[in-house]
């Protein structure tokens, strides 16, 4: 044993790293261990995620009433027919699209802006960065508590700002007006999410070669040209990836919307996820909720596939 180890140590400068990796792989191939390690995880996720999804798909073709003891009956595509004719379903897709697009624009915009600011060296940068990350680290329930208080029509501090706008003479009912409610849900979700995007973009910005900037400056490029021709191409793949991630996170968003507005007023903030929840747990319309769940599943599957493709492309680029 000893000589082999010593011999290896002596050769280590001669053997290329890649060859060593190859030796390692050969040694570790073909046994049962990885499958034994992974099996419990597959079973676990199978029981708690995959099988409920499959049951949901099955349930969407049936009629099920939990409260009564009626047996589950096969109804074919009836739930789907109802879904396609249901203006509220289409409305919830529209709301989802609006919510997601606005969060992408605002959260990624704020993320990029702060990343550009924080990419410059300045005093107290570590402290300022830690402060900036706090919204992201805050749990959702207390976030909602804060904002409901800030938006309180009687005492909310936001009214002080709103009253500065000419023509606003009384405190608005922030969560009762459909457009305002949507705006706030978007702003709160963006406030909570943008530090995450900011930090990821900051990492991307710092990986853009400083030499490129120096060379361009020598050639007389101005700040805008530097941004357009060096910064943007340098972080483009990261931005793409974040757009997809942001749409996944927004699609999943539940607690903030649920606790702020419950989907209201009059469905103005009822995203597909909220609609599914309300159908199942407010109207006990399980089978119909299951059909909408399948629609939601397909949407998230498509976004997930886009993410996987982008990630594979990115991995190739960085290899």
């Amino acid at each position, binding site marked *: 044993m000893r000589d082999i180890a010593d011999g290896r140590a002596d050769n280590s400068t001669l053997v290329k790293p890649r060859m060593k990796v190859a030796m390692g792989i050969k*040694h570790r191939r073909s046994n049962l261990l*990885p499958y034994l390690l992974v099996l419990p995880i597959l079973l676990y996720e199978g029981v708690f*995620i995959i099988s409920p999804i499959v049951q*949901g798909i099955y349930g969407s073709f049936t009629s099920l009433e939990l409260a009564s003891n009626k047996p589950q009956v096969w109804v074919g595509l009836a739930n789907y027919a109802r879904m396609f004719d249901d203006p509220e379903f289409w409305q919830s897709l529209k709301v989802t699209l609006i919510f997601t697009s606005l969060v992408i624009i605002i959260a990624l915009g704020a993320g990029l802006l702060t990343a550009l600011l924080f990419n410059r060296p300045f005093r107290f940068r570590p402290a300022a960065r830690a402060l900036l990350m706090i919204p992201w680290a805050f749990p959702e329930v207390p976030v909602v*508590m804060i904002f409901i208080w800030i938006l309180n029509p009687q005492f909310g501090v936001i009214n002080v700002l709103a009253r500065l706008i000419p023509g606003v003479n009384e405190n608005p009912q922030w969560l009762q007006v459909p457009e305002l409610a949507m705006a706030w849900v978007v702003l709160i979700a963006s406030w909570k999410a943008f530090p995450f995007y900011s930090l990821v973009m900051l990492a991307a910005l710092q990986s853009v070669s400083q030499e490129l900037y120096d060379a361009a400056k020598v050639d007389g490029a101005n700040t805008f040209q530097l941004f357009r021709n060096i910064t943007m191409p340098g972080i483009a793949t990261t931005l793409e*990836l974040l757009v997809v991630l942001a749409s996944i996170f927004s699609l*999943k968003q539940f607690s903030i919307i649920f606790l702020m507005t419950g989907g209201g007023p009059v469905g103005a903030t009822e995203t597909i996820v909220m609609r599914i929840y309300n159908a199942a747990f407010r109207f006990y319309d399980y089978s119909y909720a299951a059909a909408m769940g399948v629609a939601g599943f397909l949407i998230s599957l498509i976004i997930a596939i886009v993410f996987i493709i982008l990630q594979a492309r990115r991995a190739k680029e960085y290899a």
Partner: protein
Amino acid sequence: MMTTSALLSPKSKLRQTIGSVLLYLAIIFVTLVTIFPVYWMIVATLQPNKYTLHYPPPLFPQEIIFSQFGELFGRHPVANWLKNSFLIAAMSMLLCTLLTVMGAYALSSLRWRGRSLFGLFLLVTQMLPEVLVLIPLYIMYSRLELLNQLPTLAVVDVAFALPVCIWILKGVFDSVPTEVLDAALVDGCSELSTAWRIVLPLSTPGLVAVAVVAFFAGWNEYLYASIMLGSTELMPASVGLTTLKGLSGVQVEQYMAAGLVFSILPVLFYLSMQRYIISGLTAGAVKG
């Protein structure tokens, strides 16, 4: 850098100064706007509510009191809520960390057929909205009479936290140099003892990050807790907080104090582990 600044004319020096003043102003503005809601929660917690329930509200605390914390814990079952949250979180943490170590080791250090498929599987499960799984799982739980139990809720929280945790630890395992692994194998270590004696000790920060994510996944979780735990005795703090406003005699400063108490631990731990958590949330695509 020195030479260029020496060559600058006074005019461009002035421009540089203005530029850095503007930069500082922008940074201060952005930071203040970002942090304001949290500041506002702290103000509403610390000052007596006669200042808070006043319009326009004062921007700075007028007087600081601490009696609200005692009143909160004395009059409302907050301590019990926090205990339930802690139990759910601790169970999630133990189970999730165990499964994560297994999955991350297989995904990072071993070469096997189906490995990338396993990665894809994790990615897809990670990206599904929790609500989609809620209805069938709720039906299954009610049929098997598993509702209203803390462990069965913790087990569900783990299912959603597991993919992120595996990505976090995979990234950390990846950074253990292959030379070290090969040396161990050459020295006659089996794969399992390599994992146990070399990879795990070298990955302690990653393990801590996984434990943090799994713990606070259980601590913060609201949706499943609100549906699967019906009894007030078992209510965790995330759900309890939302009922607090409806309880009689809860003052604003007690309400906000409850939110603050609930948030302190997740904020501190998330901030200290942010690099790892971000790499997990992006499925390893980005190292924060």
